[in-house]
């Protein structure tokens, strides 16, 4: 299958809004995890997060529209605008029937939903905003982005827990490779820093409770790991064929050349401990990219900082890469800002593209003492390295595996 170009990046994250600010913070290894201040979360077992406080400052969305949409749609709109600007694309000049939107998220628009549910129980039926119906559901951002830009081509929302946006990007590549569309806005958005969503994430049991030390709480692959930290934001990229990107003088940031996905079929929440199915997803992605395992020179890790998740991820890499695993630099930079759940894969991909562009791998922070020494972790500080072909891994509850192969143009 064809390699598809990524020609624009839009990022809304706790570590920065916009590509430049985001990269400056990511390469410095600075943590942006802190105590939640949006509401009183002090009674939750985990009350730390990657929270975005200044969204409005970067937004051109009218108050009339803002009152109708959830924060996750707002973030998707801002990230889409950044991505199109970065790509130098004037959407009005595109054939709207040949532009698509492929976005992923895990939980939907809960800030809007829970506010309205509270009103329903207090004020009754008439207390609920009529916009509730169109604000909360997972495909709402896709709809809002399409309305905002007049996009009318084949589009899709993927809901597959933390693998959602990686799957959306993999699917977008497939559609572009079949020449069905000219251009796709692909990625994901998530806004889980709300009372009910945080409660659900806490109930799941995978969150770090090191509330006293927010910046040190998320420690993937470390001996003292005790779970992940949630975060909000959006990562959206512009995807198009290489020929089209060249023809219009676009700047190709990277090529998506392979995609693989499998299911563990083992447990309601946890992955299979043996890593076999994640290994098969990696092998499928490599075969799709016509790439040998020996060619991979960077791996972006999922890194949930939960024993069974981290260990099975290492197992899968052992299966695929064998002894060479010790040579390949790997990192999990989301330790700096938290896990964006359904949007985490898109953010990981964006970091990988920026690392390729700058020949610099951002670090996994808080990885003071690796629980296993079998991987070549980039930790503490960024490391210079020329990446030609990278692997980006995303996984979701219930054993969902999704893997992308990304190449330097």
């Amino acid at each position, binding site marked *: 299958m064809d390699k598809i170009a990524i020609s624009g990046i839009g990022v809304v994250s706790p570590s920065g809004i916009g590509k430049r600010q985001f990269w400056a913070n990511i390469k410095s290894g600075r943590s942006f995890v802190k105590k939640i201040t949006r509401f009183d979360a002090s009674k939750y077992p985990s009350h730390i997060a990657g929270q975005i406080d200044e969204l409005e400052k970067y937004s051109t969305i009218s108050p009339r529209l803002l009152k109708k949409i959830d924060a996750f749609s707002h973030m998707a709109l801002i990230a889409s605008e950044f991505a199109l600007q970065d790509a130098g694309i004037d959407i009005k000049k595109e054939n709207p029937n040949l532009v698509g939107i492929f976005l992923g998220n895990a939980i939907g628009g809960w800030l809007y939903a829970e506010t309205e549910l509270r009103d329903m129980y207090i004020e009754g039926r008439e207390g609920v*905003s*009529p916009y509730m*119906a169109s604000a909360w559901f997972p495909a709402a951002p896709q709809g809002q982005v399409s309305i905002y830009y007049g996009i009318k081509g084949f589009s899709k929302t993927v809901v597959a827990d933390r693998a959602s946006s990686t799957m959306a990007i993999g699917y977008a590549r497939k559609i572009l490779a079949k020449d069905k569309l000219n251009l796709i806005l692909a990625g994901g958005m998530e806004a889980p820093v709300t009372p009910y969503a945080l409660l659900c994430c806490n109930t799941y049991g995978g969150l770090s409770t090191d509330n006293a030390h927010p910046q040190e709480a998320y420690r993937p692959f470390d001996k003292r790991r005790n779970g992940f930290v949630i975060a909000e934001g959006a990562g959206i990229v512009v995807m198009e064929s290489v020929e089209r990107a060249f023809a219009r003088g676009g700047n190709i940031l990277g090529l998506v050349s392979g995609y693989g996905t499998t299911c563990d079929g083992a447990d309601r929440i946890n992955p299979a401990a043996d890593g076999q199915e994640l290994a098969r997803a990696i092998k499928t992605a490599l075969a799709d990219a016509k790439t040998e395992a020996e060619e991979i020179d960077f791996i972006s890790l999922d890194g949930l900082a939960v024993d069974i998740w981290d260990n099975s991820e290492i197992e899968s890499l052992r299966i695929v890469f064998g002894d060479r695993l010790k040579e390949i630099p790997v990192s999990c930079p989301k330790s700096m800002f938290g896990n964006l759940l359904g949007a985490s894969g898109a953010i990981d991909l964006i970091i990988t593209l920026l690392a390729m562009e700058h020949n610099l791998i951002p670090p996994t922070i808080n990885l003071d003492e690796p629980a296993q020494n079998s991987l070549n972790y980039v930790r503490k500080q960024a490391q210079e390295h020329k990446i030609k072909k990278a692997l980006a891994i995303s996984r979701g509850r219930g054993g969902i595996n999704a893997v992308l192969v990304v190449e330097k143009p």
Partner: protein
Amino acid sequence: MDTKAKIKEILINLLKVKPEELKDDVSLQDSIGVDSTEMVEAVIALGKVFGISLGAKEVTKFSTINDIDKVIQSKIAK
């Protein structure tokens, strides 16, 4: 405040539109491009503020401010 001014105030605050966008004799659809969901919200709010029962068929997106004023005046008078 007269009824018409109150109706405008409610719509401006509720729908986040500018005062100059609302015209007395132009339909809400033509003046501010109101959508059906916004109309649901507007009908509920107007009914609440004026203490009347207002139906979705009595005030629609094709209504002008003058039309809405007439409907509300007649209901208040009863």
